[in-house]
C-alpha cells in the first residue's frame, strides 16, 4: 500500500463532497430502475486516439453509453447533460469528459461511483450494485492500461469533531419519526419511497412509510455538527436535507427558503431530543471519527480480467444479490430460506437457505466457460460448522446427482466436483483437500477452484495451492449442461445445505494462475478505511494523526489494525513523542473488550518516522459494533501521548467469600491401589504374587477410584470380593502364611469342631479389625457372621477333607477381608 498525503486536503475533500452531492448532473427526478430499453448503437465516430482511450472504450464506455444507462442523459444530443462522458459520437471526447469523474488509481472512489452509489439514477434497484459494477468497469480500464497497478491511497484529512460534542443517532427511529419525518413523509414520499410509482421511485427511501426502511436511509442526510452545544445558527446546517432545499432548490413544496427553514427546525428538534454522550474530561483523547470520515482503502488490485460473474453482497436488504461483474446478462441471485444480510457486506446462510440464479442467466457461465475450456471459482467464506458433509457453497448444477461444478465442504476439507470427459455426470470423483491438513477453518477464508485441461483441478486456500493431484487431468468439459443454475449455500434441489458466511463469490472464465490467486487473496474482501484520529492538539505536531486501518469485520464488530502515527504535513518530522496505552472508544464510551493496544508502549522518533508515518503496532483487534457503521463514532484515548498522561488504574478485585458446602461423610473407602496394598498387608501375600497381580490388573478399574462413600457402587464391591478371594486363595495355598491369618496352619477337619471354627474366625476378626479400636465393629459380630457362614458352607462341603477345609477357609477369609472392615478408612 502506498500512501500519499494531500496538502490542504480538507478543502479538496469539501470540494469533492460538494460536487458529489450537489446534483451537478441530471435532476434526480426519476430513477431508471427499469429493464434496459435498448442496446448500444453501433459506433461510427473517430477511432480511439490512444491505447488508453481504447481501454476506456472496451472496458468502460461501451458499457455505459447505452440508452438504458448513462447515455440516456450524459450524451451529446439531448439532454447533453455535462459531463457527457457517455456521448456516442466521439469516443475521444467522451474519454476527456470521463476523466473528470473517474479515479483510475482508486476506482471505488471515483465521483461517478459515489454519485451512483448514493442513488443517482442507478439502472438497478440497488444503487450499491450499480456502484460496484461501475467500479468493476473502471478497474478493468485501469488494469488494462496499468493505472491500477500503482494504486496510491491519498489520505484525506477528516473533519474535526470533538468527542462528546456530537450526537449519536439512536437505535430507535422514534425521534426521527417525530421530527424530520413529519416533513419527509409528507413531501418526499412520492419519490423517495418504495411505494412510489415506478416512474418516480427514487432511492434513498428516507420517506418510506416503513420507518425501519426510512430511518437508516435518512441518517446519512442528517448532520448534527454544531448541535452540541446547541447553536441555532449552525446546528444541522450541514445536513443534506437542509442543503438540498436551500441550495439546490430540489423539489421544494412551497418556497425553497421557507421549506429549508422548516427542515432545519425539524433537524434541530431531532438534535435537541437526544442526549449528548460525555466522556471523562481527564482522558487524553483524540478527535472523533465515523467510518464515513475515513479514506477508502479498498477496491483495487484484484485480478478481474476474466470475471464473468461476481457477487459482493453490498445490497444489504431485499431478496436479490446482484451480479456486479458487469458482464451481461447479470446472473442475479434470488435469496430464499434462512439467509440474512451480513454487516460489512456478505450473506449469512443458515440451514436450508440458498441463493440461486435463473437457468437462463446462469447459461452465460456455460457459454463463456465452454468457449475457453477452463474456469475458476473464487469465494470468501467463513464456514459455521466443521463437522458436516454433503454441504455445498457454490454449485452450478441441476440437482444432487448432476452438475457442472461444485465447491463443497466435508468436515474440514474443501471439495471440488466437476463434470468432464473423465468423470461421471455428477462430477465425481471429487478432488478434496487433505484431511490431515484441516485446511478448512471456521474463519473467513479465500478459496479458489481452478480448472484447465493441462493442470486439471486445483484448490487454493488463502492463496496457497493445496497441491492435490487431479486424476481427471487431461479431460474436456464439452459435456457440460447449459440448463443448470448457479446456486450458493445449497444444491438447487435444496438438500445440500451449507451454513456460514459468504462475503464474495466470483466466477472467472479462465484458470487463475497461482500469482493471480494470490493477488486476489492479498486484495482482501470488503471495504477498508484509513481512519485518521486527529491528535494535533495533544501532541502539538501539525496535522498529526494516529491512523488505523478499519473495516466492518462482520455483522457484530469492526476490525482495527496497524495503528500508525502520521502527520499530513510533509514538513514535519516528529520526535520523542511517547505513546502508551491506546484504547479505542466508541460513541462516548470505552469498550472493555478487545482493547489490544493497552500494552502499547513506544516512542515516536525522527529515526523511526518515515513518509509513511511510524507504525505503532502490527496487530489487529476487533471491537464490538454498537449502532452500526453509519453512525458509530470512534475516538482514541491514551495513557500517555506526548506530555499528556492519564494512566488507567484498575481496581483491586476482592476474593469471593468462602462458600460452605454440603455436609458429607468424613469417612470413605480405600481406593484401588490401597485395597490391593491393604489386602497384601492383611494376608502377607506380596502384591507381586503372579495370581494376585493378574487378578488385580484385571479388576483394577473395577475397584473404587473415588474414596467417597457417595461414589461407592456395587460393582466396586464385586471387584473387592474378587481380589480378596484371590489373596485368600494364595494364603490357603501357602501354609507359611496361614498362622498369621487363620491363627494356625489349616488342617483337615478344623471346621468340624466349634473350637476349631472359633479359632479361625477369631484370628480372621482380629486380623481385619485390628486391636483395641473403638471405631471398628466388635469382634464378636464378625466372628458370629463368619461362624454362621462356615456352618452353612460345611453343610454343602466335605469339611473333613483338606480340599473342603481349604475352600471354606478361603471363603471365610475373603468374607472377612473383603468386607467394609477392611474397606473403610
Amino acid at each position, binding site marked *: 500500500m502506498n500512501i500519499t498525503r494531500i496538502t490542504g486536503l480538507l478543502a479538496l475533500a469539501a470540494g469533492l463532497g460538494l460536487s458529489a452531492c450537489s446534483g451537478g448532473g441530471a435532476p434526480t427526478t426519476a430513477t431508471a430502475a427499469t429493464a434496459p430499453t435498448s442496446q448500444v448503437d453501433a459506433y461510427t465516430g473517430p477511432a480511439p486516439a490512444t491505447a488508453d482511450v481504447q481501454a476506456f472504450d472496451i472496458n468502460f464506455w461501451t458499457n455505459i453509453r447505452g440508452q438504458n444507462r448513462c447515455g440516456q442523459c450524459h450524451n451529446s444530443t439531448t439532454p447533453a447533460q455535462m459531463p457527457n462522458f457517455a456521448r456516442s459520437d466521439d469516443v475521444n471526447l467522451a474519454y476527456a469528459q470521463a476523466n473528470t469523474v473517474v479515479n483510475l488509481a482508486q476506482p471505488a472512489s471515483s465521483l461517478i461511483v459515489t454519485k451512483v452509489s448514493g442513488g443517482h439514477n442507478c439502472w438497478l434497484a440497488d444503487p450499491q450494485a450499480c456502484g460496484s459494477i461501475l467500479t468493476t468497469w473502471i478497474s478493468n480500464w485501469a488494469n488494462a492500461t496499468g493505472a491500477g497497478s500503482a494504486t496510491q491511497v491519498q489520505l484525506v484529512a477528516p473533519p474535526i469533531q470533538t468527542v462528546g460534542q456530537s450526537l449519536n443517532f439512536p437505535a430507535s427511529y422514534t425521534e426521527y419519526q417525530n421530527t424530520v419525518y413529519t416533513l419527509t413523509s409528507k413531501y418526499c414520499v412520492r419519490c423517495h419511497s418504495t411505494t412510489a410509482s415506478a416512474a418516480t421511485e427514487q432511492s434513498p427511501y428516507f420517506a418510506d412509510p416503513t420507518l425501519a426502511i426510512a430511518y437508516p436511509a435518512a441518517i446519512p442526510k442528517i448532520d448534527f455538527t454544531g448541535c452540541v452545544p446547541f447553536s441555532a445558527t449552525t446546528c444541522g446546517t450541514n445536513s443534506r436535507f437542509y442543503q438540498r432545499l436551500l441550495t439546490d432548490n430540489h423539489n421544494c413544496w412551497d418556497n425553497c427558503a421557507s421549506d429549508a427553514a422548516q427542515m432545519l427546525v425539524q433537524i434541530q428538534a431531532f438534535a435537541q431530543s437526544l442526549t449528548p454522550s460525555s466522556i471523562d474530561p481527564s482522558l487524553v483523547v483524540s478527535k472523533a471519527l465515523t467510518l464515513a470520515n475515513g479514506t477508502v482503502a479498498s477496491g483495487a488490485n484484484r485480478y478481474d480480467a476474466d470475471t464473468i460473474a461476481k457477487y459482493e453482497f453490498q445490497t444489504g436488504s431485499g431478496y436479490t444479490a446482484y451480479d456486479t461483474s458487469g458482464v451481461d446478462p447479470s446472473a442475479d441471485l434470488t435469496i430464499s430460506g434462512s439467509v440474512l444480510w451480513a454487516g460489512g457486506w456478505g450473506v449469512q446462510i443458515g440451514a436450508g437457505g440458498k441463493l440461486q440464479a435463473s437457468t437462463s442467466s446462469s447459461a452465460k457461465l456455460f457459454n463463456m466457460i465452454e468457449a475457453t475450456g477452463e474456469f475458476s471459482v473464487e469465494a470468501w467464506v467463513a464456514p459455521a460448522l466443521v463437522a458436516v458433509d454433503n454441504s455445498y457453497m457454490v454449485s452450478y448444477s441441476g440437482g444432487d446427482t448432476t452438475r457442472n461444478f461444485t465447491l463443497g465442504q466435508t468436515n474440514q476439507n474443501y471439495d471440488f466436483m466437476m463434470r468432464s470427459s473423465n468423470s461421471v455426470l455428477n462430477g465425481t470423483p471429487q478432488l478434496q483437500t487433505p484431511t490431515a491438513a484441516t485446511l478448512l477453518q471456521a*474463519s473467513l477464508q479465500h478459496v479458489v477452484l481452478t480448472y484447465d485441461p493441462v493442470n486439471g483441478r486445483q484448490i487454493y486456500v488463502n492463496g496457497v495451492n493445496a497441491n492435490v493431484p487431479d486424476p481427471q487431468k487431461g479431460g474436456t468439459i464439452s459435456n457440460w449442461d447449459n440448463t443448470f443454475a448457479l446456486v450458493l449455500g445449497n444444491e438447487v434441489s435444496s438438500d445440500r445445505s451449507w451454513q456460514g458466511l459468504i462475503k464474495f463469490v466470483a466466477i472467472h472464465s479462465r484458470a487463475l494462475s497461482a500469482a493471480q490467486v494470490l493477488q486476489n487473496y492479498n486484495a482482501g474482501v470488503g471495504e477498508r478505511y484509513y481512519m485518521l484520529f486527529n491528535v494535533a492538539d495533544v501532541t502539538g505536531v501539525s496535522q498529526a494523526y494516529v491512523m488505523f486501518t478499519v473495516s466492518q469485520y462482520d455483522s457484530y464488530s469492526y476490525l482495527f489494525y496497524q495503528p500508525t502515527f502520521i502527520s499530513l504535513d510533509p514538513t514535519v518530522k516528529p520526535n520523542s513523542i511517547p505513546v502508551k496505552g491506546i484504547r479505542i472508544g466508541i460513541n462516548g464510551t470505552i469498550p472493555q473488550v*478487545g482493547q489490544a493496544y493497552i500494552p502499547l508502549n513506544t516512542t515516536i522518533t525522527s529515526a523511526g518516522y518515515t513518509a509513511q508515518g511510524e507504525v505503532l503496532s502490527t496487530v489487529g483487534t476487533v471491537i464490538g459494533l454498537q449502532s452500526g457503521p453509519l453512525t458509530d463514532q470512534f475516538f482514541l484515548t491514551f495513557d500517555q501521548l506526548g506530555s499528556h498522561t492519564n494512566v488507567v488504574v484498575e481496581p483491586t478485585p476482592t476474593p469471593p467469600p468462602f462458600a460452605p458446602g*454440603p*455436609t458429607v461423610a468424613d469417612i470413605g473407602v*480405600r*481406593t484401588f491401589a490401597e485395597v490391593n496394598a491393604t489386602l497384601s498387608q492383611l494376608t502377607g501375600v506380596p502384591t507381586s504374587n503372579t495370581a494376585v497381580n493378574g487378578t488385580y490388573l484385571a479388576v483394577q478399574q473395577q475397584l473404587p477410584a473415588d474414596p467417597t462413600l457417595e*461414589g461407592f457402587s456395587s460393582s466396586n464391591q464385586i471387584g473387592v470380593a474378587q481380589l480378596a478371594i484371590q489373596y485368600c486363595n494364595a494364603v490357603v495355598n501357602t501354609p507359611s502364611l496361614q498362622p498369621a491369618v487363620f491363627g494356625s496352619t489349616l488342617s483337615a477337619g478344623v471346621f468340624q469342631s466349634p473350637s476349631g471354627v472359633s479359632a479361625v474366625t477369631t484370628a480372621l476378626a482380629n486380623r481385619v479389625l485390628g486391636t483395641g479400636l473403638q471405631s471398628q465393629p466388635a469382634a464378636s459380630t464378625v466372628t458370629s457372621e463368619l461362624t454362621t457362614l462356615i456352618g452353612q458352607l460345611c453343610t454343602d462341603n466335605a469339611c473333613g477333607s483338606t480340599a473342603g477345609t481349604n475352600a471354606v477357609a478361603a471363603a471365610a477369609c475373603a468374607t472377612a477381608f473383603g468386607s467394609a472392615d477392611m474397606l473403610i478408612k
Partner: protein
Amino acid sequence: MAKPKMNGTQAVRGTNRCKRGTRRVAVAVAGALALLGASAFAANPDADQATRIYNRIAGVPPPNSTVLSNMTATDPVSAALIATNDPAFYNNTIRNLAAPWTNRAQSVFVPLNDYTATVVGMVRDNVPFNTLLSADLVYIADSASGAPAYSPANNNMYVFLDQNNVDLSKHLVSSTQSAVTGIPAAATAGVWTTRGGASAFFVNGTNRAQFRFTMLNHLCNDMQLVMDITRPPDRIRQDVTRSPGGVSTLFLTNCIGCHSGMDPMAQAFAYYNFSYNAVTDPMDTNGSGQLVYTAGQVQPKYHINNTNFPQGFNTLDDSWSNRWRTGPNEILGWSATGGSGNGAKSLGVELESSAAFASCQVTRVFKDVCLRAPNTTADSAQITSMIASFQAHNYSLRQPFAEAAAYCMGPL
C-alpha cells in the same frame, strides 16, 4: 455408564452387614461437624485416631503395633509424619495423586512415568514443591532396582518399576534433566520438560495444552474459572479466528476470555515440541517420541493456521507476559517480582510462586486426606493455616498431608 450410587449407610451395610457400621457413619458425620481447634492437635492421638491418620496417609492400616504405639506417643502431626514413611504413601498415595496430572484424560490408571516419579521423589525428599515447574530435576530408578537405564525416547524404566512393584520410597534417586536428556539446564522446567509432561502436553497441537492443564492441575483453576474478556487481545495468535463462522460475538464473549491470558503465557513454550515418527508411529502409540527443544527457533506449531486472523500475534520468540496480574485474576496472588520473561523456566517460577499454586496443592491434599472438599468455615481456616505452614516448611508437601490427617483424624 454411570455407576448406581449408594449412600453412605447403604455402602456400609452392603459390605459387612454390620449394624454398628451404620452407627459409625452417623458418628463420623457428626464428628465432621465438630470444630477442631489448634489445641486439639496438642493431645496425642488415641489408637483409633492414629489408625485413621495412617489409613489416610498411606492407604493401609498401621503395619504393626509398634508403629501404632509410636504414633499414639506423639502429637497428631508428628504421628502423621510417621505414616509418611510407609512405602505405600509413595507407591500409592503420591503416585495416584500425580498420575492424573500426566495425561489429558486425567486418568489415574496410567503407567508410572518420570513426571509422576519426580513428584514422588520431591515429596519423599522434601524438595520444595514450589520448584515443580522450574527445577532441573528428574527422579530415576537406582541401579539396585534392576530397571533399564533412563531414556528420553521411551518410558521403559518406569514401566519396569511399575510392573515389578518396586518400592519407590527406596529405589528412586534424584538426577537432573539436563544430565539425562541433553536439554540445556536453562531450558528445563520441572515436570513440564519431563518426558511424561512433554508427551502429554507438548505433543501435536499448539502447546496451549501444557498451560491449560497446569492451570487445572497446579493452580486448581480450569480456563472457564479464569477467563477474563477484559484483557488485551494483542498477544492472541493468528490461528484463533476472531469471527468463528462469521460471528465475532463468539470471539468477543468467549474465546478472548481465555486466549488473551493464555496465549501470552503459553508463548514461553515456543521452543518445545514432543516429536515422534508420524510415519511409523502416527499416534505415538509405541511411545517412541521425545522432547525436542530448539533454542531460538519457534516451533512450526506456533504458526499453523496463521491465516485465520493474519492481523493476530505472530510468535517470534519465547517471551511471555502474565496479563492476569491485573484484573479479576489478580486474586490468584502473584509474587512481587516476575510478570514477564523468556522461556518455560521463568514462567514456571511465575506460576509456582503464586498463592493459587500453594492453595491448590494444600486444598488438594486436604481433599485427598479428609475425603471431602473444605466445606465449613473451620475447614477454610484450616486451609489458610495449612498454606502458611506449607510455605513455612519450605513447601514440603508432606507437611500439609500430616496436618490434614491430624485435622481429620476424628474426635477423641
